[in-house]
């Protein structure tokens, strides 16, 4: 097994007022840049933010979770973060409608981060839809550690592929799959997977995307005995570990099934331990 550093969870989390610095449409997503001051330095690829939505008299009482896509430093604003937001329901649509200068109530940084290998490895990053968002930040870090970084992105259609020009610089290879063939190859990200990892040419897989995709990757990774870190996505009420709504069935060290909170013991989890067949199923 590759040695991976897990960063301590939520130790630096704070509730802050973040200003929207820019909000651009990119395909079917919005690329939203917010100022987060010195909290930027504590964010690791895989961490997420929880944002209050709907304004002062909102009927939406829960925060919405979004992966931190990239962190940077701007001379004028200090630390900034980029989010890639799909306008899905009322909350994310509200967020996508916020204009430059709007102020957001954000709790950040939250959750586990992708484990970073201590030695250079060959990494395969697999993203589905907006799941690619945190992978570009991760790619940068991995490249900085001398890793080889291959990336596969997939989505139903080209507008749902998020692959910014700047991001591609950190990637050794990038392959795109769409189900309707509107960009890249026609098919799913799992199509080339077995072959790519069969010959032992990949040390670790990092993935982020829909649960079905993560489960399929996990199956293949387990068969090929490749480490697989995946960022899961379960409905979250609190995002900070107190409500128990976001649980994922995992094999514990004692071999039993345990219900782990994906907000605090995740979102990045060990794909091999997740009991994919038990997700959303009644348990004894």
């Amino acid at each position: 097994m590759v040695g991976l550093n897990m960063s301590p969870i939520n130790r630096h989390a704070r509730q802050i007022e973040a200003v929207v610095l820019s909000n651009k449409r990119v395909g079917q997503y919005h690329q939203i840049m917010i100022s987060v001051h010195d909290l930027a330095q504590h964010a690791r690829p895989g961490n997420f933010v929880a944002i209050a939505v709907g304004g002062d008299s909102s009927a939406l009482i829960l925060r919405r979770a979004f992966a931190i896509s990239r962190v940077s430093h701007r001379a004028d604003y200090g630390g900034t973060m980029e989010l890639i937001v799909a306008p899905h329901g009322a909350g994310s649509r509200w967020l996508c409608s916020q204009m430059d200068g709007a102020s957001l109530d954000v709790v950040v940084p939250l959750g586990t981060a992708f484990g970073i290998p201590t030695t250079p490895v060959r990494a395969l990053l697999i993203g589905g839809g907006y799941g690619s968002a945190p992978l570009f930040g991760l790619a940068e870090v991995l490249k900085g550690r001398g890793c080889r970084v291959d990336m596969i992105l997939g989505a139903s259609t080209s507008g749902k592929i998020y692959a910014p020009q700047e991001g591609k610089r950190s990637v050794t290879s990038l392959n795109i799959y769409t189900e309707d063939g509107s960009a890249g190859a026609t098919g799913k990200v799992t199509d080339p997977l077995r072959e790519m990892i069969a010959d032992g040419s990949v040390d670790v897989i990092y993935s982020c995307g829909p649960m079905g995709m993560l489960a399929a990757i996990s199956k293949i990774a387990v068969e090929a005995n490749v480490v697989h870190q995946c960022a899961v996505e379960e409905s979250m009420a609190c995002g900070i570990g107190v409500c128990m709504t976001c649980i994922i069935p995992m094999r514990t060290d004692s071999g039993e099934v345990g219900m782990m909170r994906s907000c605090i013991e995740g979102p990045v989890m060990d794909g091999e331990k997740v009991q994919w067949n038990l997700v959303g199923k009644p348990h004894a």
Partner: protein
Amino acid sequence: MHNASTFDFSTKIGHTWFPTPLFTASGCASSGKELAQFFPLSEIGAVVTKSIALKPRLGRPTPRMAETPSGMLNSIGLQGPGIDAFLADDIPWLMTQNARIVVSISGETVDEYSILARRLRSVPGISAVEVNISCPNVENRGLVFACDPVSSRAVIEGVRRTIGGDIPIIAKLSPDVTDITEIAREVVSAGADGLSLINTLLGMVINTQTMRPHLGGKTGGLSGPAIRPVAVRAVYQVHQVLPKIPIIGMGGIRSGRDAFEFILAGASGVSVGTAIFGNPRAIMDVQNELKEILISRGFASLSEAVGYAHREDSTGALQRGADSEESEG
């Protein structure tokens, strides 16, 4: 005008005093650990822990929550480590934080509650036990204890007998009953020192994509600001018939104004639950705001304000600050 230094914010349940009337709502703060990084747990009245069962429980399948207009449904199914692990891990940790601890217990039979009470009896550092009787009674067709006066009484009697006279017992009632004052009277006469009002309302959301109930557990408990008027009504009704019994009011509290509403209705403590999910520091904010409101309205102590909305309508009655401009929002 009283000021922060002379104002008496304390509240009492049974023989136990709490320095402030702010409690976490059971199940909305786990065992406190995760909130401790946002504020010191010792600053609030008490941490009420997630209802603990005898055995470890995995709980219900996901999705376990659905947001609803100004509220949410949850169906956790009392996931938890069981009383043994809880006593070994959570209580000692809370004590290191100098937090006051109210342990919430839940059972599937009358006996289970008594067994849990026996386990707690000699544990140091517990300020009170909250008995969550909004659980299905497996010995009575799964009917929720709190929906039946006889079962409610049986649980509280059992806990009272087992736990002895020292630790105050708080019975937590469900609003899903025809007459909540009837249940309140039963549990108080069975030995409860205080009441927690209210637990969640039974609700359902149907996922219009799958065209099935959205939650893994089909139904769930409705909480949040949406239910506040129901909770205030319950507190008002129960305080009217049992004016001497301390009530911890809860249901949609997210500001000092909301907490004040419950105090006026008759609560001598308040719990913050769902609001924590939207704001990790919610309970501290509510605590500071409530104190400020009480002082600005000229109350010398929290207890002076408890049930103030019940006072007789007479021209002689004290009319405090009716001309003040604080917002109703």
